[in-house]
């Protein structure tokens, strides 16, 4: 496992190519949106970032469930990897959301359900990381964080629904025609291509990063093992 797997090398290159193509599509293929202008370009990566954030959240909860079920260390490593990656992506999603919100709604921050839920997910991630920091025994740390990841994963849809029950101004771009949503726009075909391509690209990017982070986690684990001299036993 010390040698970087061939497949991972290929995935690295593929990710890089995909990102370049996605950027090309977003900036040169998709037309500039009429009302909002260039700032609309944020949208392609904003949604993709948020998507990766939620993907990681799901992976963390599934890994948590598997850890509790099987008790295998690798699921703990995978859960932490997913949370760490998603933490960063979600932060980018929130910031890019703000950049979008400024021209669209004339404010940096709105208490819209998705934006607020994103912020709360970020706080759950932060709590998850703080919880891990406070536990010394690795097994207990793994069990606690698995439980917390599952709890967080289940609470988020409920949080979203409860905020949604209050009013929303977030544009529902895909698959809805809510007239009250301001700042919305209809996507024409090239935009859709760029949009879904970005989603795909970021998903691959996520898998690539996750793989790297899990490898790192396993190496860390090995170093710990060696430090305690368990290799002799």
């Amino acid at each position, binding site marked *: 496992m010390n040698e970087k797997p061939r497949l991972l090398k290929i995935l690295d290159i593929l990710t890089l190519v995909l990102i370049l193509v996605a950027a090309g599509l977003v900036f040169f293929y998709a037309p500039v949106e009429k009302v909002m202008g260039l700032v609309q370009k944020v949208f392609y990566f904003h949604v993709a970032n948020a998507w990766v954030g939620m993907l990681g959240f799901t992976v963390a909860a599934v890994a948590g469930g598997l850890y509790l079920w099987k008790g295998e260390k690798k699921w703990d490593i995978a859960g932490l990897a997913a949370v760490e990656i998603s933490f960063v992506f979600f932060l980018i999603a929130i910031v890019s959301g703000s950049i979008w919100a400024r021209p669209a709604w004339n404010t940096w921050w709105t208490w819209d359900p998705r934006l607020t839920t994103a912020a709360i997910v970020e706080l759950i991630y932060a709590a998850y990381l703080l919880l891990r920091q406070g536990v*010394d*025994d*690795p*097994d207990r740390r793994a069990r606690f964080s698995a439980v917390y990841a599952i709890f967080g994963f289940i609470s988020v849809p409920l949080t979203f629904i409860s905020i949604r029950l209050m009013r929303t101004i977030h544009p529902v771009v895909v698959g809805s025609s809510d007239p009250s949503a301001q700042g919305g726009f209809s996507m024409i075909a090239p935009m859709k291509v760029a949009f879904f391509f970005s989603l795909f690209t970021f998903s691959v990017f996520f898998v690539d990063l996750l793989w790297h982070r899990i490898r790192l986690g396993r190496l860390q*684990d090995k170093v*710990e*093992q060696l*430090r*305690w001299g*368990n290799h002799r*036993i």
Partner: protein
Amino acid sequence: MMISVRNLVKRFGPKTVLHRLDFEVGAGDFVGLLGPNGAGKTTLLRILASLSRPAAGRVQIAGYRLPAQAAQVRRRLGVVSHQPLLYGDLTAEENLFFYGRMYALEEVKTRAAEVLHLVGLYSRRSDLVRTFSRGMRQRLAIGRAVLHDPEVMLFDEPHTGLDQDACAMLDTVLSEIAARGRTVVMTSHDLARVADLATRFDVISRGKIVASGTRQEIGPDNLLRFYRQAVKSAEGEV
């Protein structure tokens, strides 16, 4: 065998505390488990008490496997740790009532009174445990542990923090328990405390039982030498 442990491994993260430990106790034996600090005494006892899960190996108590049949084991097990596991804001009697209900005992009140007599606290039964001295608490802790009349008793350093008188009283209670034919495992790093009570001595060092001998085999005055030799040779190995 009342207690049978084979190839027991316990890890705390990267640190291995018990290395394929084997340990057996026959019915009615009183085993003194000796060892320096950090040898794995408490860890072994916590695993036997079903409070901690083994990473590998087979643990069997009174014919039941741990952790699979933990409920059956717990019913037959009395545990005294260095913490008394008592509630300060309840009276001595109430503490026993509480634990009696936790163990689903039928005649809780009669049994509690019996036990209070046994540990010599009947006259203080309505006093809050908060007001008890360390020695009284420890005696009540033993009362709590024998409440459901367990076949196997585990004592983890029961003498810690007790003065001479309290120790003597504790020893009386302990020898009474032994006289009733209970299987007892008691840890200590203080040899003098177990020397008079135990029928067998096992020395644990670095997560393994490194020596074992009955009182007759070792001889009454050789315990200290036996212990030192065992620890020394075990540490020399590494």
